[in-house]
């Protein structure tokens, strides 16, 4: 541990994999019906992480802005797809993907670039060892917030369409007619992040800090990085959810302020 991290051999990972197989066998024998999913998810973990390992090795060796930008773009599009597929009643005509992707782009990319240039300041600013993990954490959390917010918004509008129209009939502005549903959507998008900040260090040791400590960083520095990342995540998720919920609720109404549930696909 004196300099850096203890080497981990593939056969040592095999021991952990055997434990997963053992768990799968146990659930199979107990007819809990999780064995298949467990094996598939475990296999996916190995393949996906192995691939990303190769990609990152190559990216770190090249360290060219255009390759890092391409990587960031791929990450963004995958996150956009994920946001779309997590919604029960998604907006039709590419709007679910578009609103999700745009709001993540605006918030995650802005916050990541800001943190790299102004706060952390690696040379060059896009140094992949910093840029890629930071962007990954931002996107991962913003994605959760945006997906939860949009899902809650569209589902809420669907379930409460009578209330929304009842308000419109009384002459309320569309903004006022969905105000409480927007508030709910915003809340569901932000709550996981707020909970994570509240529980940090007490209930859970956040993953990034744990990783840095394992890699031999002094805990005091690891804590500073973790606080920075937590704040950035809160800001990114918050602004991302604001943009997504605002654009999404606008899209639920047309220019004559009619509730347009026909713009949502049914489950």
């Amino acid at each position, binding site marked *: 541990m004196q300099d850096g991290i203890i080497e981990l051999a593939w056969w040592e990972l095999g021991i952990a994999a055997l434990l997963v197989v053992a768990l799968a066998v146990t659930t199979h024998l107990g007819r809990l019906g999780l064995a298949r999913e467990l094996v598939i998810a475990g296999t996916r973990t190995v393949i996906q992480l192995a691939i990303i390992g190769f990609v990152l090795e190559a990216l770190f060796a090249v360290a060219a802005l255009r390759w890092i930008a391409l990587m960031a773009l791929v990450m963004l599009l995958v996150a956009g797809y994920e946001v779309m597929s997590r919604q029960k009643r998604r907006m039709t005509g590419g709007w679910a993907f578009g609103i999700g992707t745009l709001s993540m782009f605006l918030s995650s990319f802005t916050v990541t670039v800001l943190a790299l240039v102004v706060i952390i300041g690696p040379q060059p600013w896009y140094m992949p060892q910093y840029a890629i993990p930071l962007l990954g954490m931002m996107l991962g959390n913003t994605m959760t917030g945006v997906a939860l917010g949009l899902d809650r918004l569209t589902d809420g509008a669907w379930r409460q369409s*009578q*209330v929304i*129209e*009842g*308000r*419109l*009939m*009384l*002459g*309320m*502005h*569309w903004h006022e007619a969905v105000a*409480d549903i927007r508030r709910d959507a915003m809340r569901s998008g932000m709550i996981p992040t707020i909970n994570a900040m509240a529980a940090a260090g007490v209930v859970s040791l956040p993953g990034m800090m744990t990783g840095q400590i394992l890699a031999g960083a002094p805990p005091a520095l690891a804590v500073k990085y973790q606080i920075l990342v937590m704040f950035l995540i809160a800001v990114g998720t918050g602004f991302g959810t604001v943009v997504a919920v605002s654009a999404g609720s606008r899209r639920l109404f*047309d220019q*004559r*302020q*009619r*509730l347009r549930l026909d713009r949502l696909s049914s489950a």
Partner: protein
Amino acid sequence: MDALTLEAVAVGPLREINLTVRSGEVVCLSGASGSGKSRLLRAIADLEPHAGRILLGDLRQDALAADRWRARVMLVPAESSWWGSTVAEHFLEPVPGSLEGFGLSPAVMDWDVARLSSGEKQRLGVLRALSRRPRALLLDEPTANLDTATTRRVEQWLRSHARREGVPILWVAHDPEQISRVGDRHFTIRGSGLREGGCRTG
């Protein structure tokens, strides 16, 4: 107050609907289920895409922001929806005498929405709209859940309100006797158009 005018309105199965409800007039509208009565009311309130022109006096529907149009031309649906916990939260200042006129005690304003009966909800739905002082009213079967005596009170109050304030009312109704009591004129939906006068089947 101004008349409500429909010029060549088309929505759903309806085509070329021309109709004027004059200031202070109650016009009844009937038609079979699915004939498009409710959709026509929704189109007049601009809640449904439609063709043609709709005017309140000289004011065109599309010349106003939709929320301001709906504040003037107010639709009261057959089923009212409630979101607050007490009745009062849904009201602006109730029209003086309207609660009593509808057979409700003024204390109803403090009640929980959850304990309202369907008849109370229906009457309060109309009163809630009136509390916003609309200049035209679209009523979709406003007495469907009321007993005979209460129905009469509500009819009388609304009729005299229309006269007093000059508010045009378009009233969807099925009962021929009610239509003859409240309606100055009566139209029935037949196919894609309106026909003046009764239909025996209601």
